[in-house]
């Protein structure tokens, strides 16, 4: 029992980067904008989040800064794909490179080369009164830092917006058939723009969470491909926020499992254990692409004057 509790308690915070970034990806994806710059935005979010927290002395400000800078990148993506109708993948990749470069540049400029890497305080656990007293569940679910609760709240909010509101229905229709949506008077460009800005911002926050949760350090490879796994997660969850939560649990579980197996030393070289999340992702994608749905206009630009639809 103790073993399982501990595993789940570690898994919940590990879900946060996946949740925030994947929900951000799903948000813009349902409007038809397929962002592929997540890896870069997470690295940039981690760097900016860390640096601002370090300078301002507040993780909240750092988190907000990461959201803002990634949101600016999202705005560029949205403008170039909706207004200029440039290829979404190519613009996304270009932004990925620019974000990587900017992250490295900023860290070097602000910190420079130091003997001791700078530290920021890690996020404090804030148990929820009463709820955290429930045996087992309280410890697993309700005894974490605030960003954990926020990530779950954002997930639920996005699900609520998409599936329980009228404007959410209109929003989802854009990703399926923008021409039909447009003819009903839904503003395709505006919906794609705001969802890409907010979605990218969430990806940036996901990156910022990484230096704040475990070590308080920023290291260059700390995102370690999570930005790409997040895209896999969006596909796995069929671009639906509630299924993405389940998928995030799977990815986070794999990550925790690999780390714990490495620490425990189970006789297998640790390199093979560390491969586990990635191999599992490959296997899971086989199923994801067979059966999971995706918005039919995902990754394609909408031109009102074009006759081609579908």
């Amino acid at each position, binding site marked *: 029992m103790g073993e399982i509790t501990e595993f789940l308690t570690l898994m919940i915070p590990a879900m946060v980067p996946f949740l925030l970034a994947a929900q951000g990806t799903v948000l813009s994806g349902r409007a038809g904008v397929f962002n*592929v710059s997540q890896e870069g935005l997470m690295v940039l979010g981690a760097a900016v989040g860390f640096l601002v927290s370090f300078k301002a002395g507040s993780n909240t400000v750092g988190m907000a800064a990461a959201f803002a800078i990634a949101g600016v990148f999202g705005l560029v993506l949205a403008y*170039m794909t909706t207004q*200029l*109708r*440039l*290829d979404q*993948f*190519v*613009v996304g*990749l*270009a*932004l990925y*490179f*620019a974000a*990587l*470069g*900017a*992250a*490295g*540049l900023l860290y*070097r*400029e602000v910190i420079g080369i130091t003997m001791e890497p700078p530290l920021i305080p890690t996020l404090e656990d804030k148990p929820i009164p009463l709820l955290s007293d429930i045996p087992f569940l309280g410890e697993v679910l309700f005894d974490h830092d605030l960003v954990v609760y926020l990530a779950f709240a954002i997930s639920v909010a996005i699900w609520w917006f998409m599936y329980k509101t009228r404007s959410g229905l209109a929003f989802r229709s854009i990703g399926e058939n923008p021409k039909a949506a447009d003819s009903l008077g839904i503003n395709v460009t505006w919906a794609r723009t705001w969802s890409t800005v907010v979605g990218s911002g969430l990806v940036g926050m996901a990156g910022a969470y990484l230096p704040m949760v475990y070590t308080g350090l920023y290291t260059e490879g700390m995102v*370690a*491909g999570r930005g*790409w*796994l997040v*895209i*896999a997660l969006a*596909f796995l969850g069929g671009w639906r926020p509630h299924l993405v939560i389940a998928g995030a649990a799977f990815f986070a579980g794999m990550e925790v499992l690999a780390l714990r197996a490495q620490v425990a030393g189970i006789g297998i*070289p640790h*390199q*093979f254990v*560390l*491969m586990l999340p*990635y*191999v599992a*992702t*490959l296997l899971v*994608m*086989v199923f*994801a*692409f*067979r059966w999971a749905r995706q918005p039919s206009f995902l990754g394609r630009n909408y031109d009102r004057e074009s006759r081609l639809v579908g």
Partner: protein
Amino acid sequence: MSETLTAPPATPAETPGKRPSRVAEALWLVVPYVVSVVLAFVVGGLIIAAIGRDPIAAFESVLTTSFNTRFGTIETLHKWVPVLLCAYAFAIPLATGKFNIGAEGQLLVGATGGVALGILWSDLPMVVLLPCVLVAGALSGAVWAGIAAFLMTKFQVNEILSTVVLNFISFQLIDYVASHVWPDRGAGHPATTPVGEGALLPGIGQAPPMHTGVLLTVLLVIVIAVFMRRTSTGFEMRAVGANLRAAQVHGIRTSRLAGAGLVVGGAVAGLAGAIEVAGVHGKMLEGMQSNFLILGIIVGLMARGSMLALPFIAFGIAVLEVGAGSMQRTAQVPVEMVLIIEALILLFLLLSDIARAKIRRS
């Protein structure tokens, strides 16, 4: 997928009989590159000035390091090889409309294949061993990309994701090979023991020599150009990239071709890995993939479907990359600045399509 990606930019329909001159056509192709590069440097210069450094000094060392010394020139050529091969690894699958973001993994696995033979058969003479090492590299890279190709054709797994995920698996794989199979304990960094003498690419000239992988790459440039332009498979690949539906209607087996494109791309990246082992390092070490994946994608995207443009663009990028290090030393501008400039060139190049369409229409 926009056509500008996979085919040379289409010119708007002209009235028959009134075709623009060849000079004008060439200008329409070259001018956007020049303008994009200049604009990217202007914006980059503003950023450098904003962080309080001297943009002129920075750009001077970025642009001249490759040509000032023999050492710089050789280093540039040595960098040109993996950048160009990774660019092919990206551009060949792109010709069929597929994105290969896995050149890094394919390069590393290719290096593993090459280093394995180079160590196991280290006693063999060069005439036998060197070709074996290079072929093993290409085959290993092809197999690694083949996993993604298999998942794509059999299970419709998105190739962007599978190739990226395979990169991360390859990092662990080479870490294992370099720390458990043939570890060099004295290296202080995960690395394998050196390959046999016969596995090394001979050098040309002295202090420092240029490895013959450069000549091999020149040969490969010609082979790939001929393959894409003069063989039916090459034609089919371009047809699939230009218009998937039209190609299907004409009986081209599109999914098989797309898979083949990925495998060939993987083979080229694998060869790059083997050349890095045989020409530069003489062994395999962690981190040898450098940032070749990103540079390859940048070059592949900048070429916009033209296989002929790749070697030239790759050379330009190699110049920037070699200059980046000396820029950091002489002008105290972080090396990442060059990556930002490269991303800006790419973005301006994309924007130039729109500007071009506007100018042509008026």
